C-alpha cells in the first residue's frame, strides 16, 4: 500500500505536466476551436532555454543568440525567461499560423499544428547546438529548481517537489478556470466558442481574446515543464513532443470544455502510469504486458472518454468553415501509365546502391501516402496512425515468415490483413467523432501500438524482428545479394506491387467507392439521405487504407530484412501525412510527390548526399507543411482570399481564365495540386499588380500551369507587388463589381466561387 502511495506521488510530476498541458489545450480549444498538437514542443523550447541560461547565460533566438549574463543566470530569471519564450512562441503561432487558418478546413489546422510541432522540435535541435551555446549540448541538464527534500508518510517516501508540482498544476488550472468563469473576457471567450458571430455582434474581437489565451497557456505550459524537467525527461526532444498525446487524451476526458476535470484526470493519469510501472515489476504481472502499458493508457482513456462518457464534444460554432481541397477523379489512361512505369523501371535499372534503395523506398512511401490520400483526402477522415498500420503488418510479417513459415505472396497479403483488422478497430471512433478529435484518437492509438507492440520485448525481440527473404517458385526475390544492397529483382517486385495497387486505387476512386467516399466527405447527412451507409463507408475506408499501408509496411520489412520500431514511429507517420498534404492530399500524384520527398526517399538522399543538409530535413519538412497550410493551402488560402477581397473587379475573360487554370492543372495532374492554388493566386495577383506595372506574365492562362515552383514564386512576387499598391485600402472600391466579393460571413466560400468562375 505504501508502495502504491509512493509511486502515485511520484507520478504527480508527469501528471502535473499532463494537467497543465491538457488545461492549456482546453483553453485554446475554447478560444479558437483549434487542437494544438504543438503544445508539448512549445514547452520544449522553454526547457532548453532555461537550461542554456542556467549553464552559461545564453539566450537563444530562432536566429542569433546573445549572452544575457556572464556565467549562469540566476534560477528565477532563467525560469521566467524560459517560460516567457514559450509565451512568445505561442503568440507567434497564433498570429502567423492559426489566426490565418481560423476558417480553414480542420485538416489544414491539424497539418499546421503538426507542422508547428515538427518545426519547434527541429529548431530546438538545430539552435541549441555547440556553436550557439559555446558548450557541448550533451552536457546540458535541466537544473533542479524545486527543493529536493523528502519526507515519510505512512511508510512511503514522498518527494516534496512532486507535491509542489501537483500544487502548481492545480493552481494554474484553477487560475484558468477562474479566468474563464468569472472575468468578462473569459466569459466572452466561452461565448465565442458557442457562437462567434454573436460575440462579434457584441463588439468583441475573438482574435484578441484568443491571443491572450495563447500567450497565457504558452507561459504556464513552459513554466510547468521547466519545473518538472529534472524529474520527467531531461532534455530529450521527442519525449516532450509526445507529452501532448496524454495531455490530449485527458483533454478529451474533460470534453474539451472542463479545465477542472482535465486537471484532475491529468494528475490521476500520471499517478496511474507510475503505479502500473510499479506493477510490471511484480511476479504476477503478465510478461507480455510489461512494456508500453503506460503509453497504451491514453488510447484506452480516449476510447472510454468517447464511448462510455457518451456526451458529445461541442464543436465550435463559427460560420463558414472551409472545405477540403477539391478532388478530380483520376482517369486511367493506359499509355501514360505504361510510360511512367517504364521510366521508373529504367531509372531503377540505371541506378544502384543507395540511390536505387532510395527510389525503392520512395515507391513504398508512395503506397503509404496513397493510403493517406484515400482515407484523409477522399474520405475526409484525419488519421495519424498510418505508420502504425504499416508497422503492424511489418511485425506480423516477421512472425508469419519466421515462426509460421508462410511463403511469400501469402505472407505479405496476410500481414496486410492483420493491419486491415487493426485499421477497422482504430476506425471505430470515427463513427462518433470527426475532424481534429479523430486525429487525437488516432494519434493516441498509434502511440499505444508503438509502445505496446513495436517496443514490447515479449512481442518483438530486442535483437529486432527478423523477416525471411521472399522467394517465388524457388526464385529468390531477396533484397540483398552479396555486396549488392538492393537487387534489381526486389526493386521490380516493389515496383510491380506498388503500381498494381495504385491502379487498383485509381479504379476505386473512379468507381462507386470513390463516389461514396466523396459523398461522405462533402456532407455526411446528405450522404445518408441519399442512401449511403456512412458508418460502413467510413470503416471500409479505414480497412482499405490500412491494407495499403500494411502492404507498404511489409515491403519496408522485406527491404531491410529485419524490422526496427524506428521505421514506424508516430513521428514518421506525421511526416508522411505532412508530405502528402504538401504534395496534394487529394491526388495520386500528390502521393508520388510525398513518396519522393518522404523519409529515406530520393529528396532525403539528395539533401543528405549532395547538399549535406540532412539535419535540416525535419525543419524543411515542417516549413513546407506550414507554408502549404497557411500561405498556399489547397483549398484557397489567405493570400488568395486577401487578393480576391481587394481586387476591385475581374474582367470576365480573366475570371474564366482562372477557372480553366484550376480545371486544367487538376486534371492534368502534371505537377501538383499546388500549381492549382498557386496558379490561381498568380492569376489574380497578376490582375492586382497590373497597375504597378510589375505584373508577372501570369495574366494568360497557359503560362500559369507551368511548374509549381515558378507559379508559387510568381504569386509571391505578385502578392508583394499588390501589397505595395493595395495596402490597407478599403474594399469600397469593389462597389460596382458584380463578380468578386468576399462576404465576411464566408470569405473562403466567396473566394472559391470566384476561383471557379
Amino acid at each position, binding site marked *: 500500500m505504501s508502495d502504491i502511495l509512493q509511486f502515485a506521488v511520484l507520478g504527480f510530476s508527469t501528471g502535473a505536466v499532463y494537467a497543465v498541458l491538457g488545461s492549456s489545450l482546453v483553453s485554446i480549444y475554447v478560444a479558437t476551436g483549434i487542437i494544438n498538437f504543438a503544445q508539448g514542443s512549445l514547452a520544449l523550447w522553454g526547457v532548453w532555454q532555461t537550461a542554456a541560461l542556467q549553464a552559461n547565460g545564453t539566450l537563444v533566438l530562432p536566429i542569433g543568440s546573445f549572452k544575457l549574463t556572464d556565467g549562469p543566470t540566476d534560477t528565477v530569471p532563467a525560469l521566467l525567461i524560459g517560460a516567457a519564450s514559450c509565451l512568445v512562441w505561442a503568440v507567434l503561432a497564433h498570429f502567423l499560423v492559426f489566426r490565418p487558418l481560423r476558417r480553414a478546413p480542420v485538416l489544414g489546422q491539424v497539418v499546421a499544428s503538426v507542422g508547428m510541432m515538427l518545426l519547434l522540435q527541429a529548431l530546438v535541435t538545430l539552435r541549441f547546438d555547440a556553436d550557439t551555446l559555446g558548450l557541448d549540448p550533451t552536457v546540458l541538464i535541466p537544473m533542479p529548481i524545486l527543493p529536493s527534500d523528502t519526507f515519510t508518510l505512512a511508510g512511503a517516501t514522498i518527494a516534496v517537489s512532486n507535491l509542489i508540482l501537483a500544487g502548481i498544476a492545480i493552481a494554474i488550472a484553477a487560475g484558468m478556470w477562474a479566468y474563464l468563469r468569472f472575468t468578462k473576457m473569459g466569459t466572452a471567450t466561452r461565448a465565442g466558442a*458557442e457562437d462567434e458571430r*454573436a460575440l462579434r*455582434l457584441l*463588439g468583441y474581437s475573438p482574435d484578441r481574446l484568443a491571443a491572450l489565451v495563447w500567450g497565457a497557456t504558452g507561459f504556464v505550459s513552459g513554466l510547468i515543464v521547466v519545473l518538472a524537467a529534472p524529474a520527467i525527461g531531461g532534455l530529450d526532444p521527442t519525449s516532450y513532443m509526445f507529452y501532448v498525446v496524454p495531455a490530449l487524451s485527458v483533454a478529451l476526458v474533460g470534453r474539451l470544455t472542463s479545465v477542472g476535470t482535465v486537471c484532475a484526470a491529468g494528475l490521476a493519469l500520471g499517478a496511474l502510469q507510475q503505479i502500473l510501472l510499479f506493477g510490471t515489476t511484480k511476479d504476477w504481472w503478465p510478461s507480455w504486458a510489461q512494456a508500453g502499458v503506460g503509453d497504451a493508457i491514453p488510447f484506452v482513456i480516449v476510447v472510454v472518454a468517447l464511448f462510455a462518457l457518451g456526451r458529445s464534444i461541442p464543436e465550435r460554432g463559427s460560420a463558414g468553415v472551409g472545405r477540403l481541397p477539391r478532388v478530380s477523379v483520376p482517369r486511367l489512361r493506359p499509355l501514360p501509365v505504361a510510360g511512367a512505369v517504364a521510366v521508373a523501371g529504367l531509372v531503377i535499372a540505371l541506378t544502384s546502391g543507395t540511390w536505387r534503395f532510395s527510389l525503392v523506398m520512395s515507391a513504398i512511401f508512395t503506397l503509404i501516402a496513397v493510403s493517406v490520400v484515400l482515407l484523409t483526402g477522399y474520405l475526409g477522415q484525419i488519421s495519424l496512425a498510418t505508420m502504425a498500420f504499416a508497422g503492424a503488418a511489418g511485425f506480423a510479417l516477421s512472425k508469419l515468415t519466421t515462426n509460421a513459415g508462410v511463403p511469400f505472396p501469402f505472407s505479405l497479403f496476410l500481414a496486410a490483413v492483420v493491419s486491415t483488422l487493426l485499421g477497422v478497430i482504430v476506425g471505430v471512433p470515427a463513427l462518433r467523432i470527426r475532424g481534429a478529435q479523430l486525429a487525437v484518437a488516432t494519434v493516441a492509438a498509434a502511440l499505444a501500438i508503438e509502445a505496446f507492440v513495436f517496443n514490447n520485448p515479449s512481442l518483438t525481440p530486442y535483437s529486432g524482428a527478423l523477416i525471411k527473404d521472399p522467394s517465388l517458385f524457388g526464385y529468390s526475390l531477396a533484397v540483398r545479394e552479396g555486396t549488392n544492397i538492393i537487387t534489381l529483382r526486389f526493386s521490380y517486385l516493389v515496383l510491380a506491387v506498388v503500381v498494381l495497387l495504385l491502379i487498383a486505387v485509381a479504379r476505386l476512386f473512379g468507381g462507386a467507392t470513390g463516389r461514396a467516399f466523396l459523398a461522405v466527405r462533402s456532407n455526411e447527412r446528405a450522404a445518408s439521405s441519399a442512401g449511403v451507409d456512412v458508418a460502413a463507408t467510413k470503416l471500409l475506408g479505414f480497412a482499405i487504407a490500412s491494407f495499403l499501408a500494411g502492404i507498404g509496411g511489409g515491403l519496408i520489412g522485406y527491404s531491410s530484412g529485419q524490422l526496427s520500431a524506428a521505421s514506424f514511429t508516430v513521428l514518421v507517420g506525421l511526416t508522411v501525412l505532412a508530405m502528402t498534404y504538401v504534395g496534394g492530399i487529394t491526388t495520386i500524384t500528390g502521393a508520388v510527390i510525398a513518396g519522393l520527398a518522404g523519409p529515406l526517399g530520393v529528396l532525403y538522399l539528395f539533401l543528405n548526399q549532395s547538399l549535406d543538409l540532412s539535419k535540416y530535413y525535419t525543419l524543411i519538412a515542417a516549413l513546407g507543411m506550414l507554408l502549404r497550410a497557411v500561405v498556399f493551402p489547397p483549398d484557397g488560402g489567405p493570400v488568395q482570399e486577401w487578393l480576391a477581397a481587394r481586387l476591385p473587379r475581374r474582367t470576365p475573360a480573366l475570371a474564366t481564365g482562372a477557372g480553366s487554370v484550376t480545371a486544367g492543372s487538376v486534371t492534368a495532374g502534371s505537377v501538383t495540386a499546388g500549381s492549382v492554388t498557386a496558379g490561381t493566386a498568380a492569376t489574380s495577383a497578376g490582375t492586382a499588380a497590373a497597375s504597378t506595372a510589375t505584373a508577372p506574365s501570369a495574366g494568360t492562362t497557359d503560362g500559369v500551369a507551368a511548374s509549381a515552383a515558378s507559379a508559387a514564386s510568381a504569386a509571391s512576387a505578385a502578392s508583394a507587388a499588390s501589397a505595395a499598391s493595395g495596402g490597407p485600402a478599403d474594399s469600397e472600391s469593389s462597389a460596382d463589381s458584380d463578380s468578386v466579393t*468576399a462576404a465576411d460571413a464566408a470569405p473562403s466560400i466567396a473566394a472559391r466561387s470566384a476561383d471557379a468562375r
Partner: protein
Amino acid sequence: MTTPTPTPTPTPTPTDTESPVESATVTPTATATAAEPALVIENLSAGYRGVPAIRGVNLRVDPGNILALLGPNGAGKTTTLLAAAGLLTPLSGTVTALGAPVSGRVERTARAGVSLIPDDRGLFHRLTVIENLRLAGGRDELDQALERFPQLRPLLRRRCGLLSGGEQQSLAIARTLMRKPRVLLIDELSMGLSPIAIQAILPTLRQLADETNLAIVLVEQHIDQALSIADSAVVLHHGSVALSGPAAALREDRQQIQSAYFGR
C-alpha cells in the same frame, strides 16, 4: 431609386401607394430637427457566394423611428440586416450607419452603436443569464436592464438554453439595450412565439424609440403588429423593394401586402 434627401420630409399623405414611395422616411414631429439619419442603405446588393439575394435596395431610418421590413420568406430581409450590421460585405451599394461606412466591419460597427439581434437571437445558451448580460455592459447598465425587464431577475443564474422562448426574447432585448445602441436591427424576434409574446414586446420597442431616440429596423412576420408600431415600412419581394411607404398607409391598404405575401 434616387437617394433620399437628408432633410426629413413631412409625413406624406397616403393617397398614392400604387407607385412606391421614394423614401421610406417618416419623421415624427417631435424630432423634426435636421438630424442626421441613423442608417442609410443605398442601392444595396448583397448575397452569398457572389450570388445576390437582394438587389438595389434603398432604405433610410432616422433617429427615433421604427422601420418595419416586411416580405415573404426568402425575400431578402435577413440579408439586408446582415449587410447593415457588417456581417456581409455588399456586392455593390453602400451602408452608412451613424455617419460611418459599415462595409463588412462588424466589431467596429457594433462598438459604434449598431446592434443586431439575429433571428436565432444570438444568445449564448451554455452561459447563464447573468453571464449573457454581463458581456454587454457594467453594473449600472445591468441594473437598468433588470429594472426594465424585471422578469429576468429570478432567472439570473439559470442557463440561457433552459429559458422559454419568451424569456429568451426578453433577454436578447435586455442584453442589446445594455449596450446603449443608437441603431437597433431586429430579425424575427417573434420566431416561434405566440402572438401574445409579441404583443408584450412591441410597445416596449415603440417606447424605446420615442424615449431614447433609438432607430429601429424591425423584420417581423406578424405584419399587423409590426405596422402598428412602425413609422414606415418596406416590403421586399424576391430581393427587391416591392412596396414602401408610411406604416399608416400600408395599414390602410392590406390588399397590397397580402398580395405580396400570397402572390398575385
